[in-house]
């Protein structure tokens, strides 16, 4: 029951990608809370139970740590689990299994763990402190894990397929706000998007915005605004956070000499710092202005619309900083 409408949403794209990998490889299975009969809190696994049966579409008790631990065990024993965390925020409950066991198996004893942990992340859905967090950094900081976050439906499908075929544990962060807000026509063929490759979303000459996830769209909106003001902004979508595409990061920094590092996640200890570290060390001679970080402030994610709007980075906030940087 593939969806056949001309345009595919981000949420459907993920679902199609998993579906195709389930068809393609018997060792792939999905496991998580409420993913069977219910089809998952966000309907990513809708219809999979009927098609692939209860052995490959596994409803679990409310046990994130056991889901990750069991997934890792299954991966060690030859399967390719695709685990669903109902919300990225609750991945914290499996933190020890992810960072202390799964991530270290290959290094400790040469044992591969081909496992994907999918987690609905991000805000702008009035989810409040527990259902809006961006959780990439602890995993970006854990050697042995790969981390991706698609910004488009095309990448959502291509990256989930690549992640499932990858032989290392991959944290696949899907943005809840993008689920139904972005869609596009997808090629009918079996394609993947390689892990570790960033994508230039817009060419520009005056400055670069390096970002990922939902913020790619805010950056593009800002770039459109600014082009009207004669400021030419390049937008790089990282797509994969580990391994980072250092080549693309340094190339755009060297090209425009002014860089804005943008993410929805909170500022301190966010990816912006890592990017600043790479650029300030390896493209220093090319820089014509300060590296500007734009991120959420260091607070939990507030619930009330008035507060959440103030909390989240946006096209307007990017445009404002960009004007400042352009004058610099």
């Amino acid at each position, binding site marked *: 029951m593939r969806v056949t409408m001309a345009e595919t949403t981000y949420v459907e794209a993920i679902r199609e990608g998993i579906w195709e990998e389930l068809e393609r490889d018997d060792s792939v299975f999905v496991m998580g*809370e*409420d993913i069977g*009969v*219910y089809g998952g*809190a966000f309907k990513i696994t809708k219809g999979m139970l009927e098609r692939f049966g209860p052995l490959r579409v596994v*409803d*679990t*008790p*409310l*046990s994130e*740590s*056991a889901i990750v631990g069991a997934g890792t065990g299954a991966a060690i024993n030859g399967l390719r689990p695709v685990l669903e965390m*109902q919300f990225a*925020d*609750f991945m*914290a*409950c499996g933190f020890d299994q992810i960072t202390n066991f799964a991530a270290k198996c290959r290094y400790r004893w040469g044992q591969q763990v081909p496992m994907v942990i999918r987690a609905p992340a991000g805000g702008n*859905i*009035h*989810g*409040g*402190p*527990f*259902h809006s967090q961006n959780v990439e950094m602890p995993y970006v900081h854990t050697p042995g894990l790969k981390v991706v976050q698609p910004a488009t439906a095309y990448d959502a499908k291509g990256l989930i397929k690549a992640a499932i075929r990858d032989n290392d544990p991959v944290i696949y962060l899907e943005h809840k706000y993008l689920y139904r807000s972005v869609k596009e026509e997808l090629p009918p063929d079996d394609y993947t998007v390689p892990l570790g490759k960033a994508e230039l979303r817009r060419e520009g000459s005056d400055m670069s915005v390096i970002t990922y996830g939902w913020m790619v769209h805010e950056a593009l909106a800002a770039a459109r605004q600014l082009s009207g003001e004669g400021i030419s902004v390049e937008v790089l979508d990282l797509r994969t956070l580990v391994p980072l595409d250092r080549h693309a990061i340094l190339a755009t920094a060297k090209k425009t000499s002014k860089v804005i590092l943008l993410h929805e996640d909170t500022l301190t200890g966010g990816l912006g710092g890592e990017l600043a570290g790479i650029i300030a060390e390896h493209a220093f001679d090319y820089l014509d202005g300060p590296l500007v970080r734009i991120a959420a*402030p*260091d*607070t*939990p994610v*507030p*619930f*009330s*619309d*008035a*507060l959440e*709007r*103030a*909390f989240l980075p946006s096209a307007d906030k990017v445009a404002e900083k960009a004007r400042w940087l352009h004058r610099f």
Partner: protein
Amino acid sequence: MLMMRELEERIELKLYRQGKIVGGCYTGRGQEAIPVGSAIHSRPGDWLTPSHRDMAALLIRGITPREILAQYTGRAGGLTNGRDGNMHMGCARRHCVPIISSIGASIPVAGGLAFAMRYRGESNIVFNYSGDGATSRGDWHEGLNMAAVMQLPVVYLCNNNLYAYSTPLDKQMKNPHIGERAASYGIPYEIVDGNDVLAVHNAAQRAVAHARSGEGPYFVECKSFRVSGHSAHDPADYVPKSLHEEWARRDPILMLQKHMVEEHGADEQDFVNLRRQVLAEIEDAVEWALAQPFPDPATLEDNVYERV
């Protein structure tokens, strides 16, 4: 009890559908007997850690419909000043810990609240509320075992409503009697009809007496049923109709009214009057809440750390 019912109905059926409530929307419809029959025993010095089905516990603690509706509508002056949403509400002054979204996390926290009571030699206790789904979390296990070992004064009210979101009990546990787990930790337990407020009341009374007297934790499993969907967006088609029919007959408010009529000579008019009072209070609360301002964005970064 009626207040919780009507208030939640208003929130879910009216405000939520009118889009005045943003974010998720959970109710404890049909399970009101559990918070009502238990929180009624609480003293000012006690602490409560209600779940997302226990609005009545907050009402009993003196949290007003006005405050609750301001919370649901994300207003300043709501219980969390708009920082947290819907039933994620609590109040330090009235000793209610707001829901910790990570299901099961409140069980060790309840132990710590109780530890402090014992530390100071108080006779206060903690009322912890959680569901069947919470029993699958590691925190549930660690928290109960620690409370047993340390003999902490906690009364656990477990709302076994047969489902965790869409997951039926048999996919959560092989042995459907959660109380038997408590026993394996050395914690005394009872299993009661969670829709019979008097049964809950009596079991909770025994549990509270046990905990207050320093004999340690006590576990009450309340067998109930989640009449509503998991939250307002969930039609819950995964629940067999038969279950609904079976439990419709066991509505805790109808059961209590029947009791009031038979044992205490109450009549229809009493209930009509009560309902009228309740609805009037809700009218006032809705009006008040919707008149409250939204939080000032300038306060966004306040209160992450102590201001020094």
